[in-house]
């Protein structure tokens, strides 16, 4: 059910983002989805990559602070109201969303969203009950 996401700490100075991407490129790791959350002083870069374990090592090797955690990839209907419907289900079930960002899945070629929930298990329950598709790791990574 879960997809591994890499989160890393980036200072707000030029070249850091490029350095992170280069570290992954050197190890032939592909970035599938990316989100940059930032404050005035620093940012957190969140990545879905083709090989999360190697990706973690590559970024650590390049000197970054990085952790891996579990997120959910949720299928969204590619039409107006698609996202609203999902958020409605979550709100009724009182599920708190920490953050989210969009990406396109290789396999299904449908719009999808990466979600980090306060309570992942409760979220899975609520979404499954509402027949909303939660993508597996295989769906996301294509292998």
């Amino acid at each position, binding site marked *: 059910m879960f997809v591994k996401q890499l989160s890393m700490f980036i200072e707000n100075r030029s070249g850091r983002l490029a350095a992170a991407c280069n570290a992954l490129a050197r190890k032939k790791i592909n970035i599938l989805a990316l989100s940059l*959350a930032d404050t005035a002083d620093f940012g957190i870069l969140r990545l879905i990559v083709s090989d999360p374990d190697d990706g973690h090592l590559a970024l650590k090797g390049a000197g970054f*602070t990085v*952790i891996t955690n579990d997120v959910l990839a949720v299928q969204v209907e590619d039409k107006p109201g698609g996202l609203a419907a999902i958020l409605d289900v979550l709100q009724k079930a009182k599920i708190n969303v920490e953050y989210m960002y969009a990406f396109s899945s290789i396999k299904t070629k449908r719009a999808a969203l990466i979600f980090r929930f306060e309570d992942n298990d409760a979220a899975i329950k609520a979404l499954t009950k509402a027949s909303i598709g939660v993508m597996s790791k295989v769906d996301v990574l294509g292998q």
Partner: protein
Amino acid sequence: MDDLWVKDFLPREQLEKLQLERLRKTVAYVRQNVPFYARNMAERRITEDDISTLADIRHLPFTVKNDLRDNYPFGLFAVPLEQIVRTHCSSGTTGKPIVAGYTRGDIDLWSEVMARTFHMIGVTPRDITQVAWGYGLFTGGLGAHYGLERLGATVIPISGGNTEKQVMLIQDFGVTVWMGTPSYCLYLIELAKQMGVDLTKMKLRIGIFGAEPWTEAMRDEIQQRMNVKAYDIYGLTEVIGPGVSSECEAQHGLHIFEDHFYPEIVDPKTLEPVPDGTEGELVITTITKQGMPVIRFRTRDITRLTRGKCPCGRSVCRMDRVSGRTDDMLIIRGVNVFPSQIEAILLSIEGTQPHYQIVVDRQGSMDDMEVRVEVQDSFFSDKIRELEKFEAAVRTKIENVLGLRVRVRLMEPGSIERSMGKAKRVIDQRKGK
């Protein structure tokens, strides 16, 4: 009141005889009343009987800041707590403060040395004086206050802050003497300018500064922009607070009230006494204090002594303005800060000790301190909110422990420069400013 001033002019022979008498009495007193000193002296098999000349003081053991920390809170007091009428605190090297205790006699003594300080600077009972050092646990405000009252001047106990009101009172009350930290003074001068008040047209004639080091350049600036003669005074909480030494009107060094505070200069490495005129670490022994006497307290301040006669006629020896420290203590906006305190704070918040760095600068008049912390995997959170909470927790704890507002900046690992594997803890960019 005249008896008081005479003490600064005692012939050296008489002064030294008095010092030896008081030193012997103090050594006996602490040996009998303070277990810490009794132990130290027993270890060295030394008693007051071994002190037959002032030079024999070198046989007594040193006391350092950590000794006060280890005996927190009242372990170095020589009297029962009931006889202590005042306590004051100052920064220690980790979380706990240094505590000083005063008997009624000590408060009188303190008032006396402060009154002598003000008198030698030229303050009179006709002066309107504004005390902008902090009143409270800090020794600056109350120390000055009692000395001014003893002198008979008119005191405005405004403490620090409230700067617009400070400027207003300077105008409305006709303040003639202002005292505080030099950096706060510069800030006040700037604010007065913004308020459209020309301080040089006020009745101000004297400025008295201490609690932090300041350069001749700062002195010139204050004298020019406030139209005052600016004086330096020196002290430390472990000895008494302000009132250890002061510039006189001749400003040829700071006169030490050595009938109460016996000074030595030692080589900071060998700890051997050095001759007059040679720079080294100032060591002070209190020879009249009752509540918390200190024997050979290492101040970590670097200076040198002159025992020749001053143009003002005073015979009490002089020290140069302090030129630096032998430890890593910083003074920021008048507050003592040890890098190890920052370490202890980070440890208490995260349970880990990330690499950190303290960067100090001065923009305009005020010291500015930034604490840079490398983010480690162990406390890196994926949520912005958590990292911001961490930043805020560090900032708040530093404010609570040190009484200082600082900025906290999170950094990537490895971004704090290291030398020989050890991170460079402090970058002080204020030098010479």
